[in-house]
């Protein structure tokens, strides 16, 4: 148990997990993936695999077995994400106390002997220790530090830090990732989506959620003169038990939001207005049929079911673009009428606008061509949590990376000639921090109004070399 915990809180484990996830995500990017809307193991999935088989040959089965076509839904990818979650959680618990102690209860003084070590910066001042400590405090405050000074036997101990709360940035950043991952998981379970909710212009369709139906009075697809799409918009009227509850013209970037159910403009296509009447002249169907599927030859296809008559009609439009379709002329629709369970059509023929086709004791009239709008309907109550997690993520990583916490300890001692200021930091000191400490020490030499002189010097290492235009040696 203890070993497992140590494994979980180790940065090395986190690194390995990140690298494995990177490799997995890269595989999912480079290898073509089964579209997200095809359920795993469904006939569509099998068909999809058959389609890519010519490309991957015998490898198809091996890759499918390893979930390489469904990386982001695979057990191993999800296991990696789960392991990362555990690692994040364990690390956060592990670091929480350390960070809190460092932020709120930092050691205010360090052993004077540490100031004798290499890497310590020191400057000699001609003023007494008390004034030197005051100058140092002022200089540190001017650079945004919080300063705590204590008198000790060896001299004045000064502790200073800046951006100390940014230490929490790392925790916030990591926990926000956990929020995002958990929310995405929950959202995928409790959310409701329909990727292809199709409504022909002028028609009403039931949504199948909360007793709502959608009426689309008009749909417009605008193009630029070059033929490129410019704008798609649908007027959407939301009906609950027949009465209007919401209405909006939606565009691609401008959905309708009703009680957390959102309607997005997604795609569009042709539709055919049909009227069907029986032998006695009674109209049994008068609505538009959306041709949202594709038949052979890239022809838009839709279907219409009349349960009372046990009749199914397929409606096929000329191939998209309408150029040179030998079977169906522009402006015509091909109707294929099936009765009962028979696979053979009772009748099939292309009909022009306004023409009738008689079959199975019914009269099918192609009234006119229309368009349908394809909406994406989504209800995901967890989305606000995603934006919360995202905000925390940006705040966290910005705090910890762009405004890193700086801490230093100084000791101000009396010397025969005046005083000496020594400054110590922990951890790897970077160029910026080195420069700042040098500036602080140099600044102490000429405080406003004081007649002091200090000789800043560093022990151990040479000053940053390129800054002086000199090549550096001996670091490697």
């Amino acid at each position: 148990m203890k070993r497992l915990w140590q494994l979980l809180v180790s940065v090395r484990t986190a690194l390995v997990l990140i690298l494995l996830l990177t490799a997995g995500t890269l595989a999912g990017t480079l290898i073509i993936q089964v579209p997200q809307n095809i359920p795993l193991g469904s006939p569509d999935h099998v068909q999809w695999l058959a389609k890519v088989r010519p490309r991957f040959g015998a490898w198809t089965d091996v890759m499918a077995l390893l979930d390489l076509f469904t990386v982001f839904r695979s057990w191993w990818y999800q296991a990696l994400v789960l392991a990362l979650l555990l690692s994040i959680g364990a690390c956060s618990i592990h670091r929480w106390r350390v960070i809190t102690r460092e932020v709120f209860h930092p050691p205010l003084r360090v052993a004077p002997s540490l100031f004798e070590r290499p890497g310590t910066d020191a400057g000699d001042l001609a003023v007494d220790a008390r004034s030197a400590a005051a100058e140092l405090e002022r200089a540190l405050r001017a650079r945004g530090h919080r300063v705590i000074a204590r008198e000790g036997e060896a001299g004045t101990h000064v502790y200073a830090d800046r951006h100390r709360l940014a230490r929490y940035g790392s925790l916030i950043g990591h926990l926000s990732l956990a929020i995002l991952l958990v929310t995405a998981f929950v959202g995928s379970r409790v959310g409701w989506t329909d990727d292809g909710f199709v409504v022909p212009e002028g028609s009403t369709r039931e949504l199948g959620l909360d007793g709502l139906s959608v009426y689309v009075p008009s749909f417009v697809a605008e193009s630029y003169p070059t033929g490129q799409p410019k704008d798609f918009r649908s007027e959407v009227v939301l009906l609950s038990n027949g009465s209007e509850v919401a209405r909006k013209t939606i565009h691609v970037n401008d959905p309708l939001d009703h009680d957390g159910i959102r309607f997005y403009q997604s795609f569009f296509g042709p539709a055919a207005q049909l009227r069907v009447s029986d032998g006695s002249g009674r109209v049994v169907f008068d609505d538009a049929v959306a041709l949202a599927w594709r038949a052979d030859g890239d022809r838009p296809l839709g279907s219409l079911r009349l349960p009372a008559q046990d009749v199914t009609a397929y409606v096929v439009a000329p191939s998209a673009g309408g150029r040179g379709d030998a079977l169906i002329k522009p402006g015509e629709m091909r109707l294929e009428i099936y009765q009962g369970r028979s696979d053979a059509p009772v009748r099939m023929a292309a009909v022009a606008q306004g023409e009738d086709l008689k079959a199975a004791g019914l009269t099918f009239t192609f009234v006119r061509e229309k368009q349908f709008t394809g909406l994406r309907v989504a209800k995901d109550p967890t989305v606000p949590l995603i934006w919360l997690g995202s905000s925390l993520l940006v705040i966290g990583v910005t705090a910890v990376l762009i405004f890193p916490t700086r801490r230093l300890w100084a000791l101000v001692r009396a010397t025969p000639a005046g005083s000496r200021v020594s400054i110590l930091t922990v951890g790897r000191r970077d160029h910026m921090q080195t420069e700042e400490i040098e500036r602080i020490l140099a600044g102490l030499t000429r405080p406003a109004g004081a007649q002091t002189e200090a000789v800043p010097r560093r022990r151990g290492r040479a000053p940053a070399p390129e800054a002086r235009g000199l090549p550096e040696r001996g670091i490697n």
Partner: protein
Amino acid sequence: MDKMSQYSLVAALIALGLSSACYLWYLFGRRSSVARVATAGGPAMAVDVAVPASEGGAGRYGTLLAANAVAFLTLWMVFRSIYTGHGPFSNMHEFSGAFSWGILTAYLVVETRYRVRTLGAIAAPAALAMLAYAITIPADQAPLVPALQNNLLLTIHVAVSIVAYGTFAVSFGAALLYLVRTRAPQEHLPSAEMLDEIGYRSVTIGFPFMALVIILGALWADVAWGRYWGWDPKETASLVTWLIYGAYLHARTLRGWKGDRSALLLVAGFAAVLFTYFGNLFLGGLHSYAGLK
């Protein structure tokens, strides 16, 4: 406005070309002088004579010209925005020019802060390559397809990615120099320590910005397509990029991963940046509206 923007772009290209030449001369010119002196007078002399005034001058001209290139590119972006009516970020041509601007700006900030000019010999040619690429592809102002008609999000999403990509390019340059520096000690290169720090500091800027790029992309996807994440190739490619830099930030603190391996992660990270950047040319998916077919 179109003419003005084209003139600015050509001026930037010329300035950047000359700047690259100066930086390269600064790097390699110095090297040969070190070698010369070393054979003649021994290594002790080499240090003193390593920076002849004329070649230090080449570096200064490099900086000056790079600053000019940034100014011209800024002008180009302004003129282009006025001409097209939206931020210069909607097709590969505009985005590549902006990318070039991002690399140069990030580099110049580093140069000013760290006074390291040798990095210019990588950053300036990289920016030049991006700019040259921008000029070779069609600049036609294709009308925006509906999904891109969100001026605010388009501008912020892409502007933020310029910062991320620019800083990542600089960290890549620093990592390359680091790998060279640790293999064959080059007196005229900055110390390995400083190159490591430049690489790290660049990532500390790039990493939060890359997070923001992905989040803004998710926000936009939610508004336009009704889902904040759909495992679209461009989405997953940018996630790969972010994960590599995340790995780097962890690796750099670990014994055994400091130094060489971290530098290699920075190289891999930038490869992922370029892959994400050019990905829409061959990956397809929902980002395939780059103006190229």
